């Protein structure tokens, strides 16, 4: 189940128990799953539509294609103080909202952003719609929690934790594509989300030799890499890290428990730029990231072509283990994978005839 869909189900479940919660989307209600099922729209009498019945006191907000105004309006709603607003759009369009998000953080307003289509995983719409630098850029805003749950259960705990946050804004980064609902009978319960990061799968056969840290849709890649490494006899721990800010807020002992200082072999995997991950993976660590724009294709192809795979994570893990022993370079200057793995490049090389260009005159 896509985490955006899980989020929609959480909202519908919350509708009767939290009347103060309301929100909507910038014309993407169906895509963002921001509509509480059956709730009337907030529109003047006479302006409801067939798709969206409602009235002046309705609950579902329709901002239209006005992301910036949505962000500012959410601030105004929160400043009024009696209700709890949320607003959704594609994560890429957080750029359109950024000044408002910053002001929400500055004003300590408990606004919730429901940002879906949170990576190249959105697929066919291509690089204009695929966030790459956004998670890092949003994490750079002081006082904003960026939460990227890995599956439906993490999404539910994320919503609960966010709603318990009353003095600053929070952002959900949710997938368009389906992600596996992790088997919690084998893995740790999703309650760990509230602490920002938690041990999802413990190393078997001894103390962990390497820790794999994943967020959102890439947690499954870390789990896949763990299978490979464990099969090779490498005790491997997987940490799900849906919210860096919440993890940072834990005390040192908990953080050391999740990321033991003695284990210097660490790999992070996230379908976005590496910026910010070095501080968690350390000198010997490796960062599986995306340092360029995406492309238009189905998401499986994109993850494969751009090297965001369980294989890549396992390979990085082995390198990191070597680095921790001093047998491989520390803190490599670039991330792995460094570049697209074939002629496919979207690094902005149009001036050189761009390898993706179909314009023969530029070749």
């Amino acid at each position, binding site marked *: 189940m896509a985490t955006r869909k899980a989020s929609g189900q959480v909202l519908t479940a919350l509708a009767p128990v939290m009347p103060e919660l309301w929100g909507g989307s910038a014309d993407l209600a169906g895509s963002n799953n921001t509509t509480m099922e059956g709730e009337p729209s907030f529109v003047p009498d006479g302006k409801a539509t067939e798709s969206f019945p409602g009235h002046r006191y309705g609950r579902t907000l329709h901002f239209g294609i006005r992301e910036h*105004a949505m962000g500012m*309006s959410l*601030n105004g709603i929160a400043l009024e103080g009696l209700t709890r607003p949320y607003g959704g759009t594609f994560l890429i369009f957080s750029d359109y909202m950024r000044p408002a998000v910053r002001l929400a953080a500055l004003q300590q307003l408990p606004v919730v952003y429901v940002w879906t289509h949170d990576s190249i995983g959105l697929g066919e719409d291509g690089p204009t719609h695929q966030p790459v630098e956004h998670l890092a850029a949003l994490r750079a805003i002081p006082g904003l929690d960026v939460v990227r749950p890995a599956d439906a259960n993490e999404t539910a705990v994320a919503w609960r934790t966010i709603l318990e946050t009353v003095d600053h804004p929070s952002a959900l980064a949710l997938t368009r594509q389906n992600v596996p609902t992790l088997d919690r009978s084998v893995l740790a319960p999703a309650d760990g989300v509230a602490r920002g990061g938690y041990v999802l799968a413990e190393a078997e056969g001894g103390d962990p030799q390497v820790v794999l840290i994943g967020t959102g849709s890439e947690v499954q890649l870390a789990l896949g890499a763990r299978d490979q490494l464990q099969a090779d006899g490498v005790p491997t721990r997987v940490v799900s890290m849906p919210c860096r800010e919440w993890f940072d807020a834990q005390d040192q002992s908990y953080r050391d428990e999740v990321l033991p200082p003695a284990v210097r072999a660490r790999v992070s995997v996230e379908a976005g730029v590496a910026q910010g991950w070095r501080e968690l993976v350390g000198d010997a660590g490796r960062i599986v990231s995306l340092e360029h724009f995406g492309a238009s294709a189905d998401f499986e192809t994109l993850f494969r072509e751009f090297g965001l795979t369980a294989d890549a994570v396992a390979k990085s893990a082995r390198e990191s283990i070597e680095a921790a022993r001093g047998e491989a370079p520390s803190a490599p200057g670039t991330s792995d994978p460094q570049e697209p793995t074939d002629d496919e490049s979207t690094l902005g090389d149009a001036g050189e005839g761009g390898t993706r260009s179909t314009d023969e005159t530029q070749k």
Partner: protein
Amino acid sequence: MSQTAPTLTAGRDESLTRPIADEVGWTDADVRAVDTVRVLAADAVQHAGHGHPGTAMSLAPLAYLLYQDVMVHDPSDPHWLGRDRFVLSAGHSSLTQYIQLYLSGYGMELDDIKALRTWGSATPGHPEVHHTTGVEITTGPLGSGLASAVGMAMAQRRQRGLLDPDAAPGESPFDHHVWVVASDGDLMEGVSSEASSLAGHQELSNLTVVYDQNFISIEDDTDISFSEDVAKRYEAYGWHVETVDWRGRAGDSGDAARADDGTGPYTEDVDALHAALQASRERTDRPTLVILRTVIAWPAPTARDTAPRTGPRSARTRSRPPRSCWASTRRPPSPSRTRSSSTPAPWSGGARRRTPGGRSATWRGARPTPRAPVCWTGCRPRSCPRAWTRPCPPSRPTRRAWRPARRPARC
């Protein structure tokens, strides 16, 4: 007009047109207070050596009118739920608000204004919510205040629908109004267009924006970059638009105003402004844009109608109003002395809530306060363990005061 204290304006420069404020009932004390606001704004910036005095000077009558005669608010209870919201979208003119907070009894003191834009002061460069009592929202990035005010107006309607849907129009504490003061820059920024379009569609009649059209921005005359017909734009958004023109012969550009001798024709018709504002409160079908045509920094002889382009030192000398236009002393009259004794002095911080048209509704106790969950404060899931599993229905009508303060859950 009553002349209860004629000495209060005895020293006023006769060449400066006296504000027309008969219908709203301003006395010499009010005129003196408004003039004092201008001096305070100029002095504060001169003292700090930096800042924006111009709009605070020319909008002194507007700000004073809002805080003294238009807005429903209670300086002794700044978080009172039924208060009107004031949004200074033109946040760079923070003195516009700070000085009114001083005059109306929000706890702002003269020393705070002297400490403008300094470390630890209650008067930062731009207004900051949670920092200065009486400031509802952090503003400064142009357009953001106006756009957020649209959200406030939407929230007001939703809250009324949730908590007090059966009250007659104007009779609910949730019927508060949102007042915005916006500048040319606010109207240029794209976000205000988005938000105003949304506000028009939503028919947010509880929203009034006063657009201070002075044709000046940082690059001086706005003719260089801004020439659309704002009134028609807002009419197209579905707003009610009306214009109150104080500029007289100053015309439609900074150059024209600067060439004018600047004294005779500039007339602050406060009555016309007041009528426009009151009508906007009564309107029920659309938001209102009042285009208030002013000359920035009026009546400072050399600073008016100019942009702050030559640095703080020069600005300090240029923004100083002519000494002769005020009463002989530079010391501003204290608020408690400026208002005539026959008029209630809301700025003294009394508990009386100012309501428009003298409608002194004492909502607390006068009628059952709205039904609302006692624990409903936006933090319920944390404070109420059962919130996740059990609906929290509105409580029975009660005569207990309905206050928004966070309190422990009791559901």
